[in-house]
């Protein structure tokens, strides 16, 4: 989607589209109005021609056995409605002989025997329109057809056609211009929020990853802004996680490393071999504890990273519980403690990341073993529409306030203790947050229970 070369502007694309549509429409409309205008104008002036021809035909009388025409001025007044057009007329007898008029006036070449025939011809080389009207005589002295042909050049009818076309086209052209203006205004208005967002982004300091406001942004663009906000949120969490990892690491390592250094120095100065051995033993315990602290910090960082970057899968929570128990990590911390697994027959599906869930579970188990009183039970169940991964022991439970602090970035309790139960809890909290769940604690008949409660995703229809 992102290209190096900036694409053409939305405005110019839209305008190109609008102009193309208008041009195509304009040509079609112009042609149709031209044809309509031409038809209307042709009809109007054809009627004038016909009127004039009929006037002339009416004036034909039979005198002494020959047709005579007393050409009426009215016919020519009628033709003068087209003021600049030249006229031509001829009255011809049954044999085609000219009775009066201009001999060069053409006759229709069609053999149609209709009363009025319109046809195109030429008048001294200029295009002209003619009508041929037949008047039939059946008198004692004369019988036969007398044909009146009247023609006119086409200046007025062409002018009227153009006039009619322009009358129709001008409003359409104005509408087209209005359409273009409206397009410009609308597109400018729609794109303006982008400018505002760009300014907002440019003005930010590099660590400001708060969401950009989508207020007043068109829905289409809000999609982009929301996606960007989501991306920035992820970036922010990663960034915060990294920061907290660094500061936690620095903070939490300072005390044990200082203790190790002090004990090492004491051990170096110690001359009594028995005392020295005791010191070295303590030193070894210290370094082992430091190692597990480091492991936990790294696993927390990994969990926080994964929850944002790895896609959620549908996982059977029983599988997670099984994995936790079967890993037998607790046997290293507390060999001999028995862990009971309580799972049902039906699967308990959650949406999450297997690694993260296993890490959270391991931490809860290890806390139960370290701080609780055996027997320890691990189980999976469903309650109130939520999937629970729970751990039970017979101990006093977590001191009040510890749990409340676990969500915080900085864990003083964790730092203050070598075995860092708080850090483990913070991993659990992070996982719970990541998968829209939370941590529930309760004292019941079976002792203290701490559970990771996760929503059950809707059934997949596949």
């Amino acid at each position: 989607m992102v290209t190096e070369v900036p694409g053409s502007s939305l405005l110019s694309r839209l305008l190109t589209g609008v102009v193309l549509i208008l041009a195509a429409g304009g040509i079609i409309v112009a042609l149709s109005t031209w044809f309509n205008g031409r038809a209307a104008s042709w009809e109007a002036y054809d009627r004038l021609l016909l009127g004039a021809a009929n006037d002339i035909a009416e004036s034909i009388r039979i005198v002494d056995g020959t047709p005579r025409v007393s050409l009426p001025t009215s016919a020519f007044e009628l033709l003068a409605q087209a003021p600049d057009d030249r006229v031509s007329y001829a009255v011809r007898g049954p044999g085609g002989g000219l009775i009066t008029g201009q001999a060069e006036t053409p006759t229709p070449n069609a053999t149609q025997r209709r009363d009025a025939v319109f046809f195109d011809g030429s008048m001294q080389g200029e295009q002209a329109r003619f009508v041929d009207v037949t008047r039939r005589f059946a008198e004692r002295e004369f019988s036969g057809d007398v044909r009146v042909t009247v023609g006119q050049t086409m200046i007025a009818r062409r002018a009227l056609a153009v006039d009619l076309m322009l009358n129709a086209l001008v409003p359409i052209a104005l509408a087209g211009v209005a359409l273009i203006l409206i397009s410009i205004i609308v597109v400018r208005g729609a794109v303006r929020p982008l400018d505002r967002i760009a300014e907002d982004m440019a003005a930010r300091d590099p660590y400001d990853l708060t969401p950009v406001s989508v207020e007043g942004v068109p829905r289409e663009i809000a999609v982009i802004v929301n996606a960007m906000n989501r991306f920035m949120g992820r970036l922010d969490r990663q960034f915060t996680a990294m920061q907290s990892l660094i500061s936690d690491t620095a903070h939490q390592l300072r005390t044990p490393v200082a203790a190790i250094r002090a004990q090492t120095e004491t051990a170096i100065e110690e001359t009594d071999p028995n005392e020295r051995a005791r010191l070295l033993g303590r030193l070894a315990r210290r370094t082992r504890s430091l190692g597990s602290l480091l492991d936990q910090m790294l696993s927390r960082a990994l969990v926080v990273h994964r929850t944002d970057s790895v896609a959620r899968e549908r996982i059977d929570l029983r599988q997670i519980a099984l994995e936790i128990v079967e890993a037998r990590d607790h046997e290293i911390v507390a060999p001999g403690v028995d862990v009971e697994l309580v799972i049902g027959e039906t699967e308990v599906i959650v949406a999450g990341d297997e690694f993260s869930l296993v890490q959270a579970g391991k931490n809860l188990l290890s806390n139960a073993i370290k701080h609780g009183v055996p027997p320890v039970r691990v189980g999976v169940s469903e309650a109130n529409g939520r999937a629970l991964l729970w751990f039970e022991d017979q101990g006093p439970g977590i001191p009040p306030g510890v749990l409340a602090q676990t969500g915080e970035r900085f864990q003083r309790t964790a730092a203050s203790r070598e075995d860092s139960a708080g850090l483990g809890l913070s991993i659990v909290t992070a996982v719970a947050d990541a998968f829209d769940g939370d941590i529930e604690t309760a004292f019941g008949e079976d002792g203290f229970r701490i559970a990771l409660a996760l929503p059950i995703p809707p059934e997949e229809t596949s």
Partner: protein
Amino acid sequence: MKRIFLVNAMLCALGTPAMAQEDTAQFGAGDTPFLIRSTTDIAILAPALTAFAERTPDLKITYEQWGSNALDATANAACDGAIRPADAVFSSAVHLMVALVNRACARPYVSERTRALPATRRWRNEIWGVTQEPAVMIYNTELIARDDVPTSRFDLLDLMRDAPDLVRSRIATYDIEESGLGYLFAYIDSIEATTFGSLLEGLARSQAVATCCSAEIIDSVSKGEYLMAYNVLGSYVQNAAPVNVGVVLPSDYTLFLSRGYMIPKNATNPTAAEQFLDFLLSDEGQASLTAAGLLHTTAPDEQRDIQGVRRSIPLAPPLLVALDANIERDFLSRWNDAFSRPPTP
């Protein structure tokens, strides 16, 4: 019918040699030839032509004076390419000019001045009416008392009815067979008002004389040979300035003629023709035409009277009706039935 034949034969005899101009004049001493064919007497238009020649020293203006029918024949022949065309045609027989334009023999031209002309005085931007001359009645001031002078066609009818002996053979008008202009006036009269029929009847009863040529008619009225004459072009009267002749602009309606100016489509020097047209329509040209009597100026006191009765002959296709062969034959036979011809001297 016999008479028509005779007249036609006479026309043919007169017409064929009349395919030549009556008179020719030269104006200017330039190198570029500019040929005008016109029905207007050289003397009348000479001041305007001289003024134009002074403005355009490069032109060598040849002015040919023609009879209106002969000029029409020439222009048609030139249109067909048979003979050398003129650069400008200027004729009082405007129906013939309109017919020429209708035959696509003319060349269009538009300028600020031609646009300023009213619609009745131009057609297709190919013919322009540059003058305004009334068709008037003239009378001999010594033979008719001022109070008895007919001021309208109705008065004329009354006079012919009330004093048949006085007017017998003493009223003149154009012979419409020989004069294109006379035919045009008579034809317009016939469609303009119903008085025409009774007028024709009255003229016939009074044994009115249809004769040729403005100059002769005016001269004869001046000499007292005729009491009065009907439908004489006012400009000729003004130019002849005869003694004892009074002029009446008929108060029922007065026909006004605008002489037609046209540039043939195949003119060799159309630019000069356009310049001359613009000159004639300019203030200077119009002043010159007014001085020559070709532009009738109404006196302030008669202004109100004349406006309502003024009938300009529009330069438009309806004039073509006048040229229709059937119409012309009918009209001429009707006319000839009414008129006696003056004895040949």
